[in-house]
């Protein structure tokens, strides 16, 4: 059974059709990225799945529950999921450890607190007041609170916005660790390198519809699209589009008798493909 199963999801705000019929199937253990420009319906979709918003039409099963579920059943459901929201700046007067410990008390089988603290790299900050944390440290606390209940499914919303490159790498390593524990992760991001580094599959959403679901490497026919081989021939830069770049390189190599001047083999980047898919409309 899939952890997330969505069929025909629709949601409008007045005249604006934010989500116009989204289908998603995400099996257990997968890291799935939802990519899309602002206003594409990404946040609306995820917030419906998280149970924060209602929907107009469609069927949803998250770990076998409908996110509309209320009462004790909703608590049972939330016991098995973790949510890391875009921004939370609350509880500044509590220390990191107090907060993590308190949240662990909400769940039926919380993870070990020390383990979580070291997984997110906050063991040295456990006694610090939250308001004295840096942006990156705060974000790691958000993740700690998201995973403290040992969730089977984790929602990560734009997790590394505002991170410096080093902090992002560290964060990615943390997500890789979670992959190791078998946690299913639904990640929304507008960083393509992030989706490429982490996701098993990506879905591109635009204008309230999913336009493609694929592996990051295969998105938009990227894996099979023609490569561009370029090199210097005398004073000129020459290029050749080909399905068989290796053959072209071999040919050139024998032509030049070894080293090919300024050789480059270029495939369209995920960004090139993505921008083409969403019609150049980003942010």
């Amino acid at each position, binding site marked *: 059974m899939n952890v997330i199963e969505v069929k025909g999801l629709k949601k409008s705000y007045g005249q604006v059709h934010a989500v116009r019929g989204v289908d998603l199937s995400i099996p257990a253990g997968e890291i799935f990225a939802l990519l899309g420009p602002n206003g594409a319906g990404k946040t609306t979709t995820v917030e419906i799945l998280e*149970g*924060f918003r209602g929907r107009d039409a469609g069927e949803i099963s998250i770990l076998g529950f409908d996110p509309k579920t209320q009462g004790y059943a909703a608590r049972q459901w939330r*016991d098995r999921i973790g949510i890391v929201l875009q921004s*939370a700046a*609350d509880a500044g*007067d*509590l220390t990191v450890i107090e907060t993590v410990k308190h949240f662990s008390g909400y769940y039926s089988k919380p993870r070990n607190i020390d383990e979580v603290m070291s997984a997110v790299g906050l063991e040295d900050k456990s006694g610090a007041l939250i308001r004295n944390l840096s942006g990156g440290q705060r974000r790691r606390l958000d993740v700690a609170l998201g995973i403290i209940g040992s969730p089977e499914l984790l929602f990560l919303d734009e997790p590394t916005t505002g991170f410096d490159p080093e902090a992002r790498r560290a964060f990615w390593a943390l997500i890789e660790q979670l992959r190791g524990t078998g946690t299913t992760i639904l990640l929304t991001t507008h960083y393509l390198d992030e989706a490429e580094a982490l996701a098993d599959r990506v879905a591109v959403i635009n204008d309230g519809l999913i336009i493609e679901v694929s592996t990051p490497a295969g998105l938009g026919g990227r894996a099979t699209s023609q490569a561009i081989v370029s090199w210097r021939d005398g004073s000129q830069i020459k290029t050749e589009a080909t399905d068989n770049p290796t053959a072209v390189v071999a040919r050139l190599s024998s032509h030049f008798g070894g080293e090919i001047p300024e050789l480059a083999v270029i495939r369209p980047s995920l960004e090139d493909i993505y921008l083409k898919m969403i019609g150049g409309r980003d942010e």
Partner: protein
Amino acid sequence: MNKLPSALKLGIRRGGLEVRQFARQRESVVFTLLFPVILLAIFGSVFKDTIAPGVTFSQYFVAGMIASGLVNTGFQALAITIPMERDVGGLKRLRGTPMPASSYFIGKAILIAVSMIIQIALLFGFGLLFFGVEMPTELSKWLTFTWLVLLGSTCSTALGIAFSIVPKSGRGASAVVSPIVIILQFFSGVFFVFTQLPTWMQQLAAIFPLKWLTQGMRSVFLPDSFATQEVAKSWETGRTFQILVLWLVIGIFFSVRKFKWDRD
């Protein structure tokens, strides 16, 4: 089915956390807890006369200050701070956990009850030492006092949580909430002798709980002979109880049905 901690147990834990957070905000601790004492000092120094044989204005004012402390500490504080918590995403995060809403509400009720108890202790201390305030001696009066504080504090908490849905943002909350409370205090006989207010003011005030809390507190701190000077010529203790329970039910109903965890 996973076995989840009970709503009450989590509510008590949330209460502990709320109190701890409150205690760390030094400025607001001092202001919230000492504000009634400061008002008592001001009014007690200005009005030195007696308002009835053996009843000083300070004595009358202590009753009003405890009653309005219940409204300030509960209703006003919550209707302002909950929208702030909502603005910074704290409530949405809680919504995403298995913690039930009732635990959050219980936590707030504990916070308000604890700060009320401290506030009253300070008011008693200063009142006794500097303003000649006399404490009731009969057990029945202390019983009335106890249920008034507990019911008043819970009612004020519930109404504060319910009213937190009205301000659109934390920044604007104070501008919406504070005038209501101040007007209610004037109308309910906190700062003036209630029976000296215009009749329409008295009647309007009688709809809201503060008037009844103030009157109830007067029944504790003023001699029973003063009851004849009330509007109904009696303390109306039973009526006070009924009206506070009614408001408590209204507060709980809106808190449970309409509480907003998220800005939109």
